């Protein structure tokens, strides 16, 4: 096997394009993923035309909220490009300087203060269907965030006004008398007066007033809670029942490394076995020079070692951009090693079936690509019967098990790494046996 390995390494070294691809591919992927994840999503560039008068306010129960605060909320959600007029904003959209424009109209404060008309913004955007969808989605999110922030300010102003009505004091509203009594102070005062009143018509009228004042104070206090509920109707408490929450960026790293591990390993192993057939050397080797098991083990091992080294280099490279827990490096290596072995076994099984390298490579590619997609289909996104079928397919091929093992190693996700490693070992044995059957036919 030593001489066969030496021969394969010599051939690999002389296949400059293959070697270049094997080195450049993981480096390029690592850099792309690393940069994409480390830079994070960028805010959309949006032209903002603020037509409101400086200092315009919305009156809420005697309190004032500055309309310019809405624009500030919006500015924090986008990359704002202040633009003086609507016409300039349109020109900027057409030139591609901004993705969209938001026009805050002059009458927004009046409409917000009005009980009958709704305040309206004008949104302008451009682009093809995909770009429009992206811009609309980004802008809707930004506007929703700005609306929420602004409504919280209005709600706070309303809550302050209600608090003053309950506690009493100076309302600060033009025409309001100073040192007003609060609604919550009226019931104890009335109780004292009633106690001093003889039974009769006046006392019963005062008792009716006491009932009303007590009821009104209690319900006005409740309205503050109601306002909070309106600003955020449903609070969400999330509980993860199984495993550990995997951050999206480290999961993306795991997916990228697993896909690269699979492609490099399966293609190398399949190509290696198919090359023996294509060069008509298989019959010569298998007439007692090398055993079938030895030949398959050598090809799977070579592919596994190469892909393992490249996948680890990728993981380490991405680690420069994304924070990874290096104390778990032993588990990373175990996950990568067993994943590579299982992919190597799958590769030699494909190579044993194909008669030439091109057919083996095509078969390996056509099989690997859908396996990667199927393993990433989330539960609930397709009909349950179809999901079960996808689950079965993913179970009998090594990609999902490899992904789970690496995810468990890097992110401590469920199921535990040992389950996935045992699964990968089983699959390596299964595909090794299939490859052995495929190699029964020599020519």
């Amino acid at each position, binding site marked *: 096997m030593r*001489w*066969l390995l*030496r*021969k394969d390494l*010599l*051939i690999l070294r*002389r*296949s400059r394009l293959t070697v270049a691809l094997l080195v450049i591919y993981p480096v390029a992927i690592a850099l792309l993923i690393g940069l994409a994840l480390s830079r994070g999503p960028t805010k959309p560039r949006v032209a903002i035309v603020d037509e409101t008068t400086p200092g315009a306010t919305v009156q809420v129960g005697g309190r004032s909220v500055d309309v310019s605060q809405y624009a500030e909320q919006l500015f924090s959600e986008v990359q704002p490009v202040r633009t003086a007029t609507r016409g300039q904003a349109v020109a900027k959209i057409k030139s591609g300087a901004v993705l969209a424009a938001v026009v805050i109209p002059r009458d927004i404060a009046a409409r917000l203060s009005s009980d009958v008309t709704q305040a309206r913004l004008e949104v302008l955007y451009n682009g093809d269907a995909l770009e429009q969808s992206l811009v609309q989605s980004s802008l809707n999110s930004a506007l929703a965030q700005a609306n929420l922030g602004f409504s919280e300010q209005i709600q706070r102003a309303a809550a302050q006004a209600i608090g003053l009505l309950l506690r009493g004091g100076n309302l600060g509203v033009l025409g309001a008398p100073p040192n007003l009594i609060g609604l919550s102070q009226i019931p104890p005062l009335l109780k004292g007066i009633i106690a001093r009143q003889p039974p009769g018509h006046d006392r019963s009228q005062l008792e009716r007033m006491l009932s009303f004042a007590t009821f009104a104070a209690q319900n006005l206090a409740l309205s503050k809670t109601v306002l909070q509920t309106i600003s955020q109707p449903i609070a969400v408490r999330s509980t993860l029942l199984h495993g550990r929450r995997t951050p999206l960026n480290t999961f993306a790293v795991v997916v990228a490394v697993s896909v690269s591990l699979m492609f490099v390993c399966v293609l190398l192993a399949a190509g290696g076995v198919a090359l023996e057939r294509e*060069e*008509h*050397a298989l*019959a*010569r*080797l*298998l*007439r*007692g*020079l*090398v055993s079938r098991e030895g030949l398959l083990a050598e090809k799977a091992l070579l592919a596994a070692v190469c892909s393992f080294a490249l996948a680890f280099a990728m993981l380490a490279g991405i680690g420069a951009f994304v924070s990874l827990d290096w104390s778990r490096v032993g588990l990373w290596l175990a996950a990568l090693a067993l994943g590579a072995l299982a992919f190597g076994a799958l590769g030699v099984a494909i190579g044993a079936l194909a008669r030439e390298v091109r057919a083996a490579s095509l078969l390996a590619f056509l099989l690997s690509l859908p396996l990667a997609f199927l393993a990433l289909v989330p539960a609930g996104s397709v009909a349950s019967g179809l999901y079960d079928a996808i689950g079965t397919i993913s179970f009998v091929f090594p990609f999902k098990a490899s992904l789970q093992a690496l995810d468990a190693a890097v992110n401590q996700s469920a199921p535990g790494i040992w389950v996935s490693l045992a699964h990968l070992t089983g699959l390596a044995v299964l595909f090794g046996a299939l490859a052995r059957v495929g190699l029964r036919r*020599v*020519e």
Partner: protein
Amino acid sequence: MRYGEREALCGVSFDAVAGELVAIVGPNGAGKTTLLSILAGIQRPSAGSVDRVPREVGWVPQQPALYSKLSAAENLELFARLEKVADAGQAVERMLEQTGLRERAAEQVGLLSGGNRQRVNVAIGLLADPPVLALDEPSSALDPGQRARLWGFIRGLAAAGTCVVFSTHDVSEVQRYATRALVLADGELLFDGSPESFLAAAGEEDGDFEDAFVSFLNGHGHR
């Protein structure tokens, strides 16, 4: 020997001695390659046996079984190591000398001409200095000049005591080079004897060997 329901060889038996040049000739599908594969230990017969173990039989397949990214010398060294030849380096030098490939030893096999590739192919079969050499249509891809040089080399091996068994489509090679002919058709051995006796058996002592071959097959119900 069976491939599923089809019987590829039926009751074929022969022996050959040192220095013999045995030609296996027959139409397509006659079983020539199967017979040589069994002799070389590549296929196991459903029944029957071969007296020689595979290590004692040098195998030269029809298509050169070589790694095109390796040089002629590297191919020879690889197979010498795999065959566990006692002194691999010396065996490589000997075969390069015998096959006249010394000047091309460092060239990648993929860049060699068809004739030179076939010489490397034959050299690999001879690395372990086997007493028997099995060649499957060795001259099929060669031009007349390359063919003549190859046969000169093979006759030299036979003269030195190697038992050479080869298959061919070209019946003129049987007449020219073989000391014995085995005629196969549909897996059956129809004739075993010298080329001269074959002409007599076909009733064409003074005729063309190819005509004799066709007439012989027709006479035995094969077209």
